[in-house]
């Protein structure tokens, strides 16, 4: 369970450009929830993910994971229990290393990176099996550099790498935004399969309202640092894209977008 309690975050405090992003922001995400977060630019979606992952510090408030306070922990320490896929497909993989090497480093997450051999031969069959599930033919390209793969292929590998070890959360940061519509659809379906199969708690930020409605079991719409819509379970099932689009347009008009 993830709890954000009384989060306050200001940008440029004390200057004329002071911007209050979150004021007394609270959010609780139960285990096994698949939360889709939507909202216009600057509404605080990505900042929210960054606060959870420790990429930015909060000015005030607490972040609890299963009851343990992680507010002061460094980003790399938090990431040991978090899988993250980024908008930019090249951020989730190492371009100059092969698919096999990439899978191997992801497989070792949470364990020490010492002087043992980088690739465990006994695990190769398992990596092949995982890659075969993608239906992209990557299982036969183990020795290809990831840098020469397409954006969609890389994002698929990133997804596998992020979910390979046991994690508390999967964080998806607009992970289909840089892909063409068809590839985005494939990656989204793949994401859903992985989330269902691993039953991992997932937070997905997306600009695609349809994905937010179709996938996941909770929907949050952010606006000016507040969750203006927050529906879970049966309530969420009842929502449709048009309804959300209407609310989305309303707030956009207010902002003058």
């Amino acid at each position, binding site marked *: 369970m993830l709890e954000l309690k009384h989060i306050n975050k200001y940008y440029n405090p004390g200057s004329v450009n002071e911007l209050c992003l979150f004021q007394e922001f609270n959010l609780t995400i139960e285990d096994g929830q698949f939360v889709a977060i939507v909202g216009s630019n600057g509404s605080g979606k990505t900042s929210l993910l960054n606060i959870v992952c420790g990429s930015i510090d909060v000015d005030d408030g607490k972040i609890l994971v299963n009851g343990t306070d992680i507010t002061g922990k460094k980003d790399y*320490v938090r990431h040991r229990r978090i899988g993250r896929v*980024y908008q930019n497909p090249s*951020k989730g993989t190492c371009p100059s290393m092969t698919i096999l090497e990439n899978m191997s480093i992801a497989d*070792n997450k949470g364990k020490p990176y010492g002087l043992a051999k980088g690739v465990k031969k006994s695990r190769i069959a398992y990596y092949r099996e995982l890659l075969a599930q993608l239906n992209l033919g990557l299982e036969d390209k183990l020795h290809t550099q990831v840098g020469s793969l397409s954006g969609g292929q890389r994002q698929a590998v990133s997804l596998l790498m992020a979910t390979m070890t046991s994690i508390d959360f999967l964080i998806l940061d607009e992970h289909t935004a840089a892909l063409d519509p068809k590839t985005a659809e494939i990656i989204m379906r793949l994401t859903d399969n992985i989330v269902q199969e691993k039953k991992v708690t997932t937070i997905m930020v997306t600009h695609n309202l349809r994905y937010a409605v179709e996938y996941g079991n909770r929907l949050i719409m952010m606006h000016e640092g507040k969750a203006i819509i927050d529906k879970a379970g049966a309530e969420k099932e009842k929502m449709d894209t048009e309804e959300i689009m209407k609310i989305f347009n309303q707030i956009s008009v207010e902002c003058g977008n």
Partner: protein
Amino acid sequence: MILLLSVFEQGLIYAVMALGVYITYKILDFPDLTVDGSFPMGAAITAVLISRDLNPLITLPISFLAGALIGMLTGIIHVKLKVRDLLSGIIMMTALYTVNLRIVGKANLPIYNKPNIFDNELVNGIFPEALSAFSTVILIFIITMITKYLLDWYLHTKSGYMLRAVGDNETIVTSLGIDKGFVKIVGLSIANGLVSLSGCLFAQQQRYYDASFGTGTVVIGLASVIIGTSLFQKVTVLRVTSSVVIGSILYKACVALAIRMGLQSSDLKLVTAILFLLILVAGMDRKRKVKTDARA
């Protein structure tokens, strides 16, 4: 013949340094100028130890460790104190100039009549009289190859994978739960350890230490790395580390040729610089670097 021998001797010695530069420049994408100080430091420590009649073999690990310590300091200045990469190296390079003078106590120290790793009773016993001219180059070859294979091995361990990953994509290293700063410090340590080891070999081959040994080391290292990696880009059989070693020998050969064609030995640094410029202009590397630097 003597010229060829000296090209191979020095090329192979500088190759050890170039392997260090390869780690920082190519793998970590960190232009490390510390090299100009850690190379003569290895030489300085070696000259002092040998002049005090210590077993010359022991100078190798000591030089490596001292260089690793210096690399660690550069890393700490960059990672913990958040000084830019180029400036961290310049600070260490400048500081090391004084440190090296302090280690030796004067600007140069000859060790001609002391035994060293290339010239001692054991070596002279193993190599027959007829081969004695080649004993140095053979020993250097063995040491350089051992270093190369150890580095190859390291780069294929889990820790080595992290080193390669951090230069490639820092974000993924954080995502894997690893402190990217620590990985950089480890990389700089290994790199400067190798550079200092190279300085140690150089002092024993030259049989003296001079404070000016370090000037331009980084340029020689970069030139070797760029020659090696761009000439042998297409040759997949060859490990990159082997290309760097060959690059270093080729570079020494170019310099030797230039000197042979009538230039004075005092022109050496100018030749070094101009050759480096030519290599940069000819290689594709320049464009990529300029671009990434401009973005940062």
